[in-house]
């Protein structure tokens, strides 16, 4: 029996987000702070109780079923027409995302009866917070210098750029989108890289300035600081990676044979896989807010509190467990209750400025892409 002629590169590209999402869905509840269970404040020991285990088991079962259905759909799409293969992979992704969110909401509903009132104790370190990006400005300038060098190189060798240049690459690095030589098509990629790096750096700076520290003393505070430092370095690495990625793609306009597949395609895919791997490693090692990040010799378990500490936010302000709306909280960024990182306090007027900034960034990126192709 002859096996269907499948496009294995496309399958790899499809399986990367599918697998990442499935693994993330299974791990996320295990990374939350011990006293937060599906975005509900509970006793830290609840997770290990029969009721807690049952909720987690049912959630896992639901996530696995949805992931398998999405995988079957990925396979089914592969057997379809080329158009279906090209655009039909979004369906399984959305299905997986929707199934994951549904499983989360169901688990949250089951956890709600076990809610406990978090402590009303608050603590703060009495020293001005140092808001510094890792490596200082010299390290932060690196990605921008790389892109500036790319701009300069393209400008310098403008005459050697052919009249028709590749601006999009398909599976295997084969060019499948072309544009005529124009400043928008030549500099568009580097411009998007520049925008993305600026966006990442400024958003992280805003997070560092506006985020609440849950603990201010002891090993928990040390873990939290370690976590923030790790994210800072990861984002800096990410900026360098994106600058290289967009820089290389922009310099592809200078290749002597633009029709040939991109040599750097597989290294780029490998790099992308490593980035995803790094995200999982940091998430698994640190847990939300760094609570899992124990150094050798550090005391464990950490001293117990009278009541769950949670994340210093009230349960009732978490809409659907993921949207935080609290007018009485001056914080702009708060820890996510489900997942790793921070989210916005939507009741803070400045949150809408941040959302506006994100939308502006997305629109600018799309506009540059469209302009390059037009």
């Amino acid at each position, binding site marked *: 029996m002859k096996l269907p002629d499948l496009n294995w590169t496309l399958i790899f590209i499809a399986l990367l987000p599918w697998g990442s999402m499935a693994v993330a869905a299974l791990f996320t509840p295990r990374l939350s702070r011990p006293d937060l269970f599906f975005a509900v404040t509970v006793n830290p020991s609840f997770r290990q109780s029969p009721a807690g285990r049952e909720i987690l088991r049912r959630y896992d079962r639901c996530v696995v079923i949805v992931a398998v259905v999405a995988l079957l759909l990925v396979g089914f799409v592969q057997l379809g027409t080329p158009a279906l293969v090209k655009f039909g992979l979004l369906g399984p992704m959305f299905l997986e995302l929707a199934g994951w969110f549904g499983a989360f909401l169901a688990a949250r509903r089951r956890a709600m009866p076990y809610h406990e009132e978090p402590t*009303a*104790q*608050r*603590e*703060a*370190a*009495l*020293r*001005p*917070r140092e808001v510094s990006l890792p490596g200082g400005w010299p390290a932060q300038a690196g990605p921008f210098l790389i892109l500036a060098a790319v701009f300069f190189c393209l400008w310098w060798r403008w005459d050697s750029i052919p009249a028709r240049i590749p601006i999009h690459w398909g599976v295997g690095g084969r060019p499948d989108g072309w544009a005529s030589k124009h400043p928008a098509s030549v500099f568009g990629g580097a411009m998007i890289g520049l925008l993305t790096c600026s966006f990442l750096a400024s958003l992280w700076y805003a997070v560092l300035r*506006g*985020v*609440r*520290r849950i603990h*201010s*003393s002891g090993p928990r*505070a040390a873990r939290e600081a370690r976590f923030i430092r790790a994210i800072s370095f990861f984002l800096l690495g990410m900026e360098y990676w994106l600058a290289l990625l967009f820089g290389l793609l922009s310099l592809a306009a200078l290749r002597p044979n633009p029709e040939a597949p991109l040599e750097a395609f597989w290294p780029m895919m490998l790099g992308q896989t490593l980035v995803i791997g790094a995200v999982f490693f940091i998430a698994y090692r640190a847990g939300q807010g760094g609570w899992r990040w124990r150094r050798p010799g550090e005391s464990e378990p950490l001293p117990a509190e009278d009541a769950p500490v949670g994340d*210093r*936010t009230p349960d009732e302000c978490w809409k659907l467990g993921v949207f935080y709306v609290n007018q*009485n*909280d*001056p*914080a702009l960024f708060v820890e996510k209750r489900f997942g790793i990182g921070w989210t916005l306090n939507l009741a803070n007027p400045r949150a809408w400025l941040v959302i506006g900034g994100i939308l502006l960034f997305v629109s600018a990126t799309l506009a540059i892409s469209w302009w390059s192709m037009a």
Partner: protein
Amino acid sequence: MANDETTVLRIDLASPSPAYRQIADGLRALLVHGAFKPGDRLPTVRQLAIDLTVHHNTVAQAYRLLAEEGWLDLRRHRGATVIERRSQRASAASHQNFSRRLRELTARAEADGLDAKAIARQLDTLADELNLERTK
């Protein structure tokens, strides 16, 4: 500045005492015991409000109170700076006020279940600490 353990401010939002008073009292206790030296900077109003999950005005009110007492210098966008404070000569009213508040506090402690011996022990410890500071 003192080490991390002594420079952490703790408040209880469930306490009947208003948050601004808890912040001012907590900071004053640290200032009196020399946890900060003149020139040390405290966190900005915004940062402290975020960490304590209270309104900016609550922290600003506490800082203003301490500034009026001569502990802090408040400048826009520079946060609060600890300043050298001249030792005050206590008036008769201050003595009376202190005595009244101490009695109220011990009465409250007794009402909360602390026995007289435990309270006396605490007061002795406090007196020893104060004498120790004076002889430094």
